[in-house]
């Protein structure tokens, strides 16, 4: 009986405490809805990319929206993914009913940020730029704000849970914050604040957590973009694995004083460190920050972070120092932070804002291999893609060479008389055309121009797949017929870069 009484008496006290705390939190919360009216805009975006398996065709038009946060009188930032394949961007600001034409000034899928310029002539009142604060208070309440299409400012909240190094869009892992216990789904560039101070913009979200691109990344992006040319952040040019196994440490003859570090398991041909590191090196520290056996270092503000941020937190061209253990010796290696455009990868991880590169000849669709192309196979695409092609993505994507800059595949064959016998061939990696090794899309027209007196063109594929032999005399009329039959308005799209 006593125990029951105790419980009954405790319960109201707990309830009272909860009410008091809740009221206290509400009182401490600073609502800046009013202030946001001049600093956040609603962006309506029409997207229209290309069909990956009919690359001459636009895909269906879709419409999306995102939040733009003012960084100047007529410029806003939002996430890069929200404006991917955008064909029309229009903005709405509080107090102005009509849409304001907008355009992308700079987009960077690695930091997942885009700078959008609003037509100053259509903007009735200048925006008030936000100043992003590099404040980081783990556990602090954060509020988020966005402007809806009907010009109402909404707000939500959550708690700043952690700083992490991850990728929300590209191949580079960089600094992100994660808000927990979020009240709303936010992944469209919503502005997150601690009190009245802008903290960052939302880049992904689920029903529990939201990712935030923090001020540090936003300010770096804006600083880089200030002079009109954008260098971009550093890209890691190698992969590592943990160095926990005492047997591996003993085998590598690591001295006792080196307790941590990571094993360099693969070195790319592009990116930071690709020119100085070797597979088998033990990476002990970067710029004086010691790496633990999981590849993490202690950041003075954010605690343990993945080492990638020591590279992706820098701008291309900056200096960097690696302390490594190589062949039983400690070495200090100075290098330059490098990055690369995604198009320079052997298999680009994304192909956005541009038409896929292809070349149609005799009904054979030859196409540049990209991850976007493969992902168009739909759900669980990785398990469906032909393993020889997938192998290029998985193991060779970051290893272009002078001889082989791109992988060209025969996507499939558009049936016609000229290609009778080859109709079932598809998803084959092109090895050579008319005897010339194919190392990029640009090689394709050059190879077809070879041997002008030959009677046929010869396409050979990897892994001893069947060859394709096409009659040159019949080619020109066949190309015209095929283009007409299959509604192809453009038979070639090869980047001039």
């Amino acid at each position, binding site marked *: 009986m006593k125990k029951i009484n105790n419980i009954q008496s405790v319960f109201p006290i707990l309830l009272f405490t909860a009410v008091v705390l809740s009221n206290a939190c509400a009182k401490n919360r600073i609502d800046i809805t009013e202030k946001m009216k001049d600093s956040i805009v609603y962006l309506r975006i029409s997207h229209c990319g290309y069909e990956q398996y009919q690359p001459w065709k636009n895909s269906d038009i879709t419409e999306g929206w995102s939040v733009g946060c003012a960084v100047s009188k007529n410029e806003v930032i939002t996430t890069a993914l929200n404006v991917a394949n955008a064909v029309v961007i229009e903005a709405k600001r509080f107090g102005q009913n009509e849409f304001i034409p907008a355009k992308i000034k700079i987009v960077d899928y690695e930091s997942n940020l885009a700078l959008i310029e609003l037509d100053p002539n259509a903007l009735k009142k200048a925006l008030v730029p936000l100043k992003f604060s590099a404040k980081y208070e783990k556990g602090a309440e954060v509020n988020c704000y966005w402007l809806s299409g009907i010009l109402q400012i909404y707000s939500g909240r959550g708690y700043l849970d952690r700083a992490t190094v991850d990728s929300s869009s590209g191949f580079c892992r960089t600094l992100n914050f994660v808000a927990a216990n979020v009240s709303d789904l936010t992944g469209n560039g919503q502005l997150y604040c601690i009190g009245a101070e802008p903290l960052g913009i939302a880049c992904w979200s689920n029903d529990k957590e939201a990712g935030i691109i923090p001020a540090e990344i936003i300010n770096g992006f804006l600083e880089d973009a200030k002079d009109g040319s954008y260098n971009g952040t550093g890209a890691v040019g190698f992969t590592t694995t943990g160095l926990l*196994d005492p047997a591996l440490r003993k085998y590598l003859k690591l001295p006792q004083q080196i307790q941590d570090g990571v094993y360099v398991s693969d070195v790319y041909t592009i990116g930071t460190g690709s020119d100085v590191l070797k597979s088998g090196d033990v990476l002990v520290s970067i710029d004086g920050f010691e790496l633990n056996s999981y590849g993490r270092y202690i950041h003075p503000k954010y605690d343990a972070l993945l080492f990638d941020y020591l590279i992706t937190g820098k701008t291309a061209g900056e200096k960097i120092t690696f302390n490594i253990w190589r062949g039983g010796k400690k070495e200090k290696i100075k290098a330059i932070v490098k990055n690369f455009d995604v198009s320079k990868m052997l298999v680009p991880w994304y192909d956005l804002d541009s038409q896929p590169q292809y070349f149609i000849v005799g009904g054979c669709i030859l196409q540049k291999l990209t991850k976007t192309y493969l992902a168009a196979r739909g759900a*669980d695409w990785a*398990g469906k893609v032909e393993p020889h092609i997938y192998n290029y993505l998985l193991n060779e994507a970051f290893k272009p060479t002078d001889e082989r800059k791109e992988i060209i595949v025969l996507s499939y064959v558009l049936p016609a008389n000229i290609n009778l016998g080859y109709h079932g061939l598809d998803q084959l990696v092109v090895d050579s055309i008319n005897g010339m090794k194919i190392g990029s899309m640009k090689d394709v027209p050059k190879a077809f121009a070879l041997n002008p007196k030959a009677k046929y063109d010869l396409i050979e594929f990897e892994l001893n797949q069947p060859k394709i*032999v096409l009659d040159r005399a019949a080619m020109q009329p066949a190309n015209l017929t095929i283009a007409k039959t299959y509604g192809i308005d453009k038979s070639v799209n090869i980047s001039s870069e």
Partner: protein
Amino acid sequence: MKKTLFILIAFLSASVCTAELPDMSKSVVMIQIVKQGYDYTTPWKQQSTSGGVGSGFIIAGNRIITNAHNVSDNRYIIIKKENIAKKYPASVEFIGHDCDLALLKVYDPCFFDGTEPLGLGELPQVNSTVSTYGFPMGGTHISVTEGVVSRIQTDVYVHSGADAHLVVQTDAAINPGNSGGPVMQDGKVIGVAFQGLLAADNIGYLIPTTVIRHFLQDVNDGKYDGFGSIGVSLFAGLHNDSYYDYLKIPADTQGIIATSVMLNSSAEKVLQKDDCIIKIDDYDIDNDGMIMIYGTKHHMSEAIEQKQIGQKITLVYWRGGQKNTAELVIGLNRPIFDYSRLYDEQPRYVCFSGLTFVAASRNYLETWGRDWMQNIPHALRYLFSNSMQLNDDPLRKEYVILSEILPDQINTYADSFLTKPLESINDTPIRSLDDVKKAFENKDAEFYILKFMNSERPLPIEAKKAHQQNEIILKKYNVPTWAFLEQQI
């Protein structure tokens, strides 16, 4: 259209009774089986037992013929005659998993008293009537269903999952339990019922007598060798004048193109890439790779299927504008990573310091479940799909995979290597499980340095510690022996 075929063993099911057929009751038998397969990840263990019912029939020489899938991985077999209560224990005399046929012997010689062996007929005509006998869904009485022969073609035999032979398609109802039962025409067996098509109404398949006869001839010497091939990949793409011109083949010629020749195969020293094979023995090959045989067009492989392993076959082919003739010895010519399922034999393994190595097999891949082909790790999918093109090592016998880690302090950090194909130990290439055993038997090394395919990071194991822990681990996890390599590859 993607076809889903099923095999027709009935798993201890409800009985459905049909009319009694006294003549056939002397020839058609019910087969009750208890099965138990192996665990292909930890091969010293066996899976749970399961029971099944299938059909069979008596042929000359006091033999019972049935499907291999009825009696594969069997632990106990009982034969029952219709209307007789007695159960006769039996065993497998010969089994051909590639052709889904088996011969059973009954221990009690009295079993055959009063029975009538069935004779084998020829390939039936399309649209002719056939009758199927057996014990569909179990039951106690023989069931008979009638239908017509819809077509005869080469198709995949589901039991092995990879081998393709001639099949007879019928619309006679064939259901689980019919497996192994005879399909009759004019008093003769024209096929053995064996599989059906799930996504269609009443499409069932029989193993024709051409395949049955091949199987019976094969076992005449006391062992089953299987169906052979010539070991060449072919492309039926000669439908284009330019291709003729490129290959320097006369315009009125028909044939099929060799795209690659398998390492160590019968064809390795005879054929080359881009050879155009126009004739196999006396059969002209058309541009679809078909020959006129048994009064109709079938795949050219049918000419090879008429022969046994070790017999010769003559090919006529064009190469570089020249017509050539060559003789090839038919061989097993299996890819280094065989597409076919394995049965009946305990998988070989090496389990050293908790690291369990098995030979790559389809059975191991199928442990990933129903959608295994999509779900298996990339390295395994790549090897399975392309081992013929990827393997350039003529000495390789198999790929070796780290299939399981029995946790212990010696292998705490080996998890990331699980499911990876092993490339070398202390720089010695690993071409078979025997190489793994040999490598670990060498106790002179300080470390065993294991390198895996597509992985730059090695897995070092301290040799002395590993040997110390090995016995402890084997005992802890009830592994009977650290290396089981009894079967020959």
